[in-house]
């Protein structure tokens, strides 16, 4: 089997990093053409990414280490910064590409003033580029900088609409992000102090169960959980996601939160896995359950469509937090986190963009007055419904596969542990089931007005992109239901600590 | 040996002036007198310290750099003092708060 020689893969990784940085730089240098740069550059970058995935799948079995490691500047691991490309990274790059492409085509119609475009597109490409670099990077300090780039561009995009809620939400989001990044950096500093190395893979080999690693884990994972809006620290999410422009809130709920969980998973797999104690499992489980219940209840009460979607993100992140206690007992089930991130990313981006279309058409997004617009816009309601079905985890959608894997891992984990942990794991499994019931409730709340009898009024004009993109993303989330095997195949080639 | 002795003497003298300037800052009643104390005493103190250090410098470049530092501090100090005084005189907000 002709394995694509690894150096074409090394070139591909370097090219991916260069493009992820080059596009935003070009757009920032020439904002008058930023829109064209974005709409031409993004598809080309995604084609390149698909080629890289093909190359990787073709070459991966032949390579000894299941990852492509590129020392930038020609300097190898301990001294230089290394890019780390493996199955997990490629999966997240794919998700980022899909959501960004859909968001861009959606933004074509959503942002139509020339001045607005000049400010939006450079920041939008920076968010996409920053997340790409975050996923590619394999060095602790480099992760800090990419985290900062992604967070700052996200905050600037949230504040772009310029109304009071958006700027308040952006400010709160910025402060939480700065706090999260600094605690991440302090964790990296501690690890550097103990082991004198910044590269994640080398840290993984050196890490023992000492006080430094435990403290670094607390700081780094704590910072990331803050940025991923996990339950007690989620207050910023609703205001920021609900008041941001629709493509931005799609990207925030879809990709940014998922990237934070990707990073938690990456650190977990490489360095912090041996730290998983049953007590930590119970704590994370309780956090996840609280997020699930509290987020869903808030979603049931929220008066505005986009706030329902924002709180649903808090709830769905509860699912992923619930996955970690099960991971502690049954480590081999880690792909479930990626499945959830992927399924939730596509579905939530679809729901939020559909909500943006409805808001644009109706002029507001107050739930009790949206009946006429929802009844008139069948396509948008179909996107809301299909995305909602994936969030509920009902069959033949990405969400269903993710829920299947989580329940399977839960039952497996419950099978071979001490009785107390069996009780706790059983509770997690019940919470997952309860979560999908609550999800049904608030998705129904979003979709039901469309089916109630009443007058129909399509509201204001909405561009073609805003009409079709939510549907395309929702169909993507559903199609992921059939693509489970290929995603698992891709995730097999991932570096997991010994 | 002499140079070292001279440097310590000059630097100590400089420190004395700095101490005087700080004491003035704390004790004087209003803005203008405190400005006066700070700029005069500290500039002179710095001059002495710079002189002391010049003796230790290896080459003429280092001496020139030290002199440049002193000149810059002089210019900056004077401008800043003037602006603070001007501001207090026209707006008087600092004075009232003391």
């Amino acid at each position, binding site marked *: 089997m002709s394995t694509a020689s690894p150096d074409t893969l090394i070139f591909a990784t370097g090219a991916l990093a260069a493009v992820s940085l080059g596009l935003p730089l070009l757009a920032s240098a020439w904002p008058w053409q930023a829109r064209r740069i974005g709409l031409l550059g993004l598809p080309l970058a995604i084609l390149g990414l698909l080629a890289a995935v093909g190359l990787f799948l073709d070459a991966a079995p032949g390579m000894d280490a299941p990852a492509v490691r590129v020392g930038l500047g020609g300097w190898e691991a301990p001294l230089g910064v290394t890019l780390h490309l493996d199955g997990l990274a490629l999966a997240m790059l794919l998700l980022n590409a899909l959501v960004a492409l859909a968001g861009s085509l959606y933004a074509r119609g959503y942002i139509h003033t020339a001045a607005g475009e000049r400010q939006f597109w450079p920041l939008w490409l920076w968010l996409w580029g920053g997340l790409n670099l975050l996923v590619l990077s394999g060095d602790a300090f480099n992760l800090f900088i990419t985290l900062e780039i992604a967070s*700052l561009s996200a905050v600037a995009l949230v504040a772009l609409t310029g109304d009071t809620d958006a700027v308040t939400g952006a400010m709160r989001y910025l402060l939480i992000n700065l706090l999260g990044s600094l605690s991440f950096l302090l964790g990296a500093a501690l690890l*550097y*102090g103990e082991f004198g190395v910044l590269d994640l893979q080398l840290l993984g080999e050196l890490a023992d169960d000492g006080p430094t690693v435990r403290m670094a884990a607390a700081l780094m994972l704590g910072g990331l959980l803050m940025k991923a809006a996990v339950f007690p620290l989620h207050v910023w999410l609703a205001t920021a996601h609900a008041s941001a422009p629709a493509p931005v809130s799609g990207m925030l709920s879809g990709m940014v939160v998922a990237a934070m969980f990707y990073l938690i998973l990456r650190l977990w797999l490489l360095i912090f896995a041996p730290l998983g104690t049953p007590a930590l499992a119970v704590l994370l489980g309780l956090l996840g359950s609280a997020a699930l219940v509290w987020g869903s209840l808030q979603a049931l009460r929220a008066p505005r469509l986009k706030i329902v979607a924002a709180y649903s993100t808090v709830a769905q992140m509860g699912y992923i937090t619930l996955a970690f206690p099960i991971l502690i007992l049954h480590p081999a089930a880690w792909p479930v986190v990626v499945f959830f991130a992927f399924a939730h990313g596509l579905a939530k981006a679809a729901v939020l963009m559909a909500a943006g279309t409805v808001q644009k058409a109706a002029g507001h997004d*107050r739930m009790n007055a949206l009946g006429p617009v929802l009844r008139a816009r069948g396509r948008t309601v179909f996107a809301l419904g299909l995305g909602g079905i994936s969030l509920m985890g009902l069959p033949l959608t990405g969400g269903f596969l993710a829920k299947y894997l989580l329940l399977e891992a839960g039952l497996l984990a419950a099978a071979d542990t001490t009785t107390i942990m069996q009780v706790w794991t059983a509770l997690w499994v019940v919470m997952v089931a309860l979560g999908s019931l609550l999800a049904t409730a608030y998705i129904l709340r979003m979709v039901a007005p469309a089916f109630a009898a009443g007058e129909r009024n399509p509201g204001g004009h909405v561009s073609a992109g805003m009409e079709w993109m939510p549907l395309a993303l929702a169909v993507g989330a559903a199609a992921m239901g059939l693509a489970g095997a290929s995603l698992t195949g891709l995730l097999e080639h991932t570096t997991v600590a010994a | 040996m002499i140079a070292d002795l001279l440097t310590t003497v000059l630097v100590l003298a400089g420190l004395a002036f700095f101490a005087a300037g700080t004491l003035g800052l704390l004790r004087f009643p209003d803005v203008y007198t405190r400005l006066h104390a700070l700029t005069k005493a500290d500039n002179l103190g710095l001059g002495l310290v710079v002189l002391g250090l010049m003796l230790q410098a290896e080459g003429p470049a280092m001496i020139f750099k030290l002199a440049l530092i002193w000149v810059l501090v002089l210019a900056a100090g004077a401008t800043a003092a003037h602006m603070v005084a001007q501001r207090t005189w026209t707006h008087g907000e600092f004075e009232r708060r003391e």
Partner: protein
Amino acid sequence: MIESLDPGTLYPFGGAALFALGLHGLIRRRHLILRILAVNIMGSGVFMVFLGIAARGNAPPDPVAQALTLTGIVVAVSATAFALALTVHLARLTGYAVLLPGPLQTHRDSHPDDR
């Protein structure tokens, strides 16, 4: 208790104290300017830990840690500059520069009759 009080151990302690002090200020104070100052002080604390680690032992200091601190300082100043610009923008919109702890202002301005 600590066998040698060389800067390699003393300054990281100072850094940890600054980090905690900054965190305390960030949580307690409501005014945005003070919160931004608190974040900067926390950042300085982390950089002090980094440079303390760089200066450990009597070998010449570790240039990588120092380079990282330099990068960190520049990142901190750009984040602060953006935060200050956002604070001014928020003050221009809302008339005050204080983040009230209430989670959901958005209920406030939503339509009165849909409580």
